[in-house]
Every structure is written in C-alpha cells, then in structure tokens.
C-alpha cells in the first residue's frame, strides 16, 4: 500500500507542478522520459540477472507455463477490443495498444506517447497515453484489491492472469495467501516477465 501511495504521490505531484507552470524547461525535454525508461529497463534486467535461483527458475519452465501468458494476452486483447463498440471515436488498434499494458502503466503509457507522437502528433499521443496510464493504474489497483476474491472464484491461475504484470510483484503475496500453493510463485513470476517482454512488442505492433 505504501508502495502504491508513493507512486500516486509522484504522479499527483508531477501533475500539480505541471498545472502550476513552475516546472523548469528541462523537465519538458521530450527525450527525458525515454532516458529514465532506459535506466529503469536496465535495472529490471539487472534484478532478473542477479537472481540467485535464476537457473532453477529457468529449468522449471515448461510448456504449460508458456501458455498462461499467451492466454492472458489473448483474453485481454479479445475483451479490450469490445471497448471499440462503446468508444468508436478511437481506432481499434489504439484501444488494443492501451489494453496491451497489462497493468504496467509507466512503461505502456510512455511507449504509447513515444510511438504515437511520431504518427499522430503530441496532443493525440498524450491523450492516448493518459488513457493508457489511467487504464493500467486501474488494472493494477483493481487486481490488488480483488485478487483474493478472484483466486477464490477462479483459482490461482485465473488470479495470476487477471493481475497481468502485477502477478510477479504487487499481487503475488495476496495470490499466494489466497491459494496456499507455493507452486504459483514461479508461474506468476514467469507470467509477469513474459508479459513485460511482450508489452513493447504488442504496443509497437498496434501503434505502427
């Protein structure tokens, strides 16, 4: 909760400073988000590479585990596409790009902002990136608050799938608690990692 609160504060603080107009010019540098994002991705990589049980986890990967992230991707994209029926003012590909964040709001919104700025200009790109940010924040928060209920209703695998990217961090303790099955840990971490790798590819595909 403290973790989520600090994220919310950083975002709200940024918005507040943006509205007040007191932000220095360098904060508006368009290449700044990509520099920070690059630093983040290297750190995520270092975290995975330095895992002591990396070898064990890699050896325990089997075909079944490869299928769960694929199910999450197909399920999410199929249902996200339904939003096109309600919000037909957006392109279907844009809605699918927003859904492709799987709860990883910082990465997905920055990627959408970067990729769409080139094709449709900064204003529309920022709008889509904002919807992506809000949609993926909502997915993480709803998963976090609902994962006990979801695990109870549909089982551990359904809870991992619904949590999206958060299955490997924020929601993992709650899923573990609700199912009482330690075998969900490698599945949840692998699921999160696979989704994390697929996000840039899917967003690039839908934003092309």
């Amino acid at each position, binding site marked *: 909760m403290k973790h989520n609160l600090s994220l919310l504060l950083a975002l709200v603080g940024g918005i*507040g400073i943006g509205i007040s107009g007191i932000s220095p010019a360098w904060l508006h540098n368009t290449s700044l988000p990509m520099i920070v994002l690059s630093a983040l991705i290297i750190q995520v990589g270092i975290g995975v*590479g330095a895992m002591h049980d990396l070898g064990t986890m890699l050896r325990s990967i089997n075909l079944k585990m490869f299928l769960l992230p694929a199910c999450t991707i197909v399920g999410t994209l199929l249902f996200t596409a339904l939003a096109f029926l309600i919000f037909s003012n957006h392109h279907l590909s844009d809605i699918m790009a927003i859904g492709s964040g799987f709860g990883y709001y910082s990465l997905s919104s920055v990627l959408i902002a970067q990729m769409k700025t080139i094709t449709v200009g900064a204003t529309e790109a920022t709008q889509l990136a904002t919807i992506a940010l809000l949609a993926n924040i909502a997915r993480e928060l709803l998963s976090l608050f609902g994962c006990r209920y979801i695990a109870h209703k549909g089982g551990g695998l359904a809870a991992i799938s619904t949590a999206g990217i958060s299955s490997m961090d924020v929601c993992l303790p709650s899923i573990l608690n609700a199912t009482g099955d330690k075998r969900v840990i490698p599945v949840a971490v692998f699921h999160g990692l696979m989704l994390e790798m697929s996000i*840039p590819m899917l967003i690039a595909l839908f934003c092309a």
Partner: protein
Amino acid sequence: MFKILFLLLLGVGIGYVLRNIRGIHRVDQTAHYTILLLLFVFGVTIGSNHDLIKNIAYFGWQALVIAVLGMLGSFGAGCLFNHYITKKEEEQR
C-alpha cells in the same frame, strides 16, 4: 522495441556478472525510485497539458471500461487454462 529488448538483455548480463556483489539486489529499490521519477516526469507532461486536465473525467471513464474489460477477458482465459490443466492432471493419474 529492439532498443528496449537490448537494454533488458544488457541488464540481465550485467546482473548475472555482478550477482555476487553485495547490495546488487537493492536494484529493486532503485527501480522503484526510477519509476517514481518516470511517473513524476509523466505527471508534469499531463499537468502542463491543460486540455487534458479539463477532460480527465472523460478519459478516466474510458480507462476504467478498458481496464475492466481486459481483466474480465484474462480472468476468463485464466479459468479456461485452469480447467484444462486440472483435466490433464486428472487424466494422468
């Protein structure tokens, strides 16, 4: 896209080489601060876009619908997968 994949693999390589160095696992904490910085910078971009701020309720509604639909879809897919795995395990017994 390839830049991100390259950076990720570069990070994994660095992490693997430095895995025995004390304090390397604090990278999880620094990643959190980096996300904070990223969100802050993104927040400044949103805040300085006054049109966007005026329409935040409109965007929020769209975002919520997309999020809930995505969750429903993956919940359904996860349940089907769970059903399939359980059936396979029962068949093997």
